[in-house]
């Protein structure tokens, strides 16, 4: 139950024993924008839609675990867990070699240190401020009239480094407008913005210690420019990108549900 989108993941048991990657299979995933729906109604809707599309009867579901900002609104969940724990669990399922999980969602950015099993050792995030979150990049791409994807691609075409003075998203928007007025190429502005987000997130990750491999989860996975900026800011050769990045949190919650049952 994210601040912008909600997702559901259904898992099925493939084998009785073994590594989680072999034991559990992803049966069905679904994502939706709750728009005007109340969170509890939206949760019910995505759950029933998912069941119908996957051809599963509701009685076949043995356990439901909810996560994310709106997790308490999932009335039919047996349990709810924090998005930090769920994100790490899901990320390590997808990329077992990762030890540091960078999570950049719509309204938060954080660095998480995880065990090989996907348990959280430590994490540092910023819940008070949009700097270092996807919302920052989103505001700026709006100012440049580019989609987030185009924004990331534009950034890849730039090799300039323009430092952003403003940390605050609201002020950065005026700074971007000034850069536009000064005829700065869109590519260079896009890179400046993504560099700024990457450097904020890196500062958070440093607080828990950066241990390779690093995996990036959250909506910014789709932004190739951001991935590039993040690599440079972290000073690492590679950043792992999981399959189904939006579903990592829901997947983590599903795994925790599955294991509680077993």
């Amino acid at each position, binding site marked *: 139950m994210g601040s912008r989108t909600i997702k559901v993941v259904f898992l099925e048991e493939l084998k009785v024993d073994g590594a989680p990657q072999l034991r559990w299979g992803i049966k069905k995933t679904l994502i939706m924008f709750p728009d005007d729906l109340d969170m509890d109604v939206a949760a019910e809707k995505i759950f029933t839609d998912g069941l119908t599309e996957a051809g599963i009867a509701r009685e076949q579901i043995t356990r439901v675990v909810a996560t994310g900002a709106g997790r308490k609104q999932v009335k039919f969940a047996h349990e709810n867990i924090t998005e930090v724990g769920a994100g790490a669990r899901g990320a390590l399922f997808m990329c077992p070699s990762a030890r540091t999980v960078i999570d950049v969602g719509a309204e938060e950015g954080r660095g998480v240190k995880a065990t090989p099993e996907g348990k959280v050792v430590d994490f540092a995030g910023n819940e008070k*401020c949009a700097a270092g979150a996807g919302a920052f990049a989103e505001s700026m791409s709006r100012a440049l009239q580019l989609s987030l994807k185009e924004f990331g691609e534009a950034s890849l075409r730039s090799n300039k480094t323009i430092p952003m003075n403003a940390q605050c998203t609201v002020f950065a928007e005026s700074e971007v407008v*000034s850069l536009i007025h000064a005829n700065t190429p869109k590519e260079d502005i896009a890179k400046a913005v993504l560099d700024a987000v990457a450097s904020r997130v890196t500062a958070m990750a440093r607080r828990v210690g950066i241990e390779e491999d690093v995996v990036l989860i959250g909506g910014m996975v789709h932004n190739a420019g951001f991935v590039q900026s993040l690599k440079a800011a972290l000073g690492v050769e590679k950043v792992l990108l999981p399959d189904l990045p939006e579903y990592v949190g829901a997947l983590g919650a599903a795994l925790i549900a599955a294991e509680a049952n077993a």
Partner: protein
Amino acid sequence: MTVAQIQATQSGEKKEYWRWEESTWVDEAKNWRDAKFVTAGIDVGSVSSQAVVVCDGELYGYSSMRTGNNSPDSAHNAINAVMQKCGMTLENIHFVVGTGYGRVNVPFSNKAITEIACHARGANYMGGSSIRTILDMGGQDCKAIHCDERGKVTNFLMNDKCAAGTGRGMEVIADLMQIPIAELGPRSFDVDVEPAAVSSVCVVFAKSEALGLLKAGWSKNKVVAAYCQAMAERVVSLLERIAVEKDFFITGGIAKNPGVVKRIERLLKLDAVATKYDSQIAGALGAALFGYTLVQKQGVPAKVAS
């Protein structure tokens, strides 16, 4: 409806709620031609620009305009608005002091002085020599200033990193609520029960929180009240760090928003000194007063830079 009509209604709906009124004022009872020294202060801020003209150390006229995307033009625009009103030209002004973010970009100024010093000096004139603590709530920053009886700065703290507690943050809320910015304050009191502050500090998050509250059935007024309260709590935490000493004075655009001012006063249990002047001119007024002191000491500069 024709396409043109549809476009017209659409553009009409795109009202800019954040836009505040520009203003110009001249003291008709005085004549600048009688003054020995005419000095001006130009405060080019991040959101608004003010020009103040002072005749022999007395406030004569001012303008408060929006800052454009270029500081020199904004400075010219502000001073021209006052000069046109009283038939003055730049030749008639003996000394010009620039202040604010764009102070080094005032092409016709003789000197640049920081806005902190200027605000204290201006507040000392507007609120009297008993003022010891000044809260300047500007477009993109917020400052708490301590000064002595002559308006000299003794200490200050500022937040210029975050839009929470600044005029820009208020503009964002005006746009979001679709309420003209000048009505936000009065409407924030039109609630049955005073709500608690919105929990988000960040303006970006406060925006999504506000939308959530509207969805949960809160009235617009109640959301605005919760936001004004959050803003007041935010600046009071800044004030508490510097310790508030009586008398207390508020300058800057948000001083015009009773929704925030009353709530700050409630939290501090202290009333701010009222003024008959426009709270936004404090910086430019202080600059013009510094100009008057300087011109008395140094005489009129040989050539006014243009």
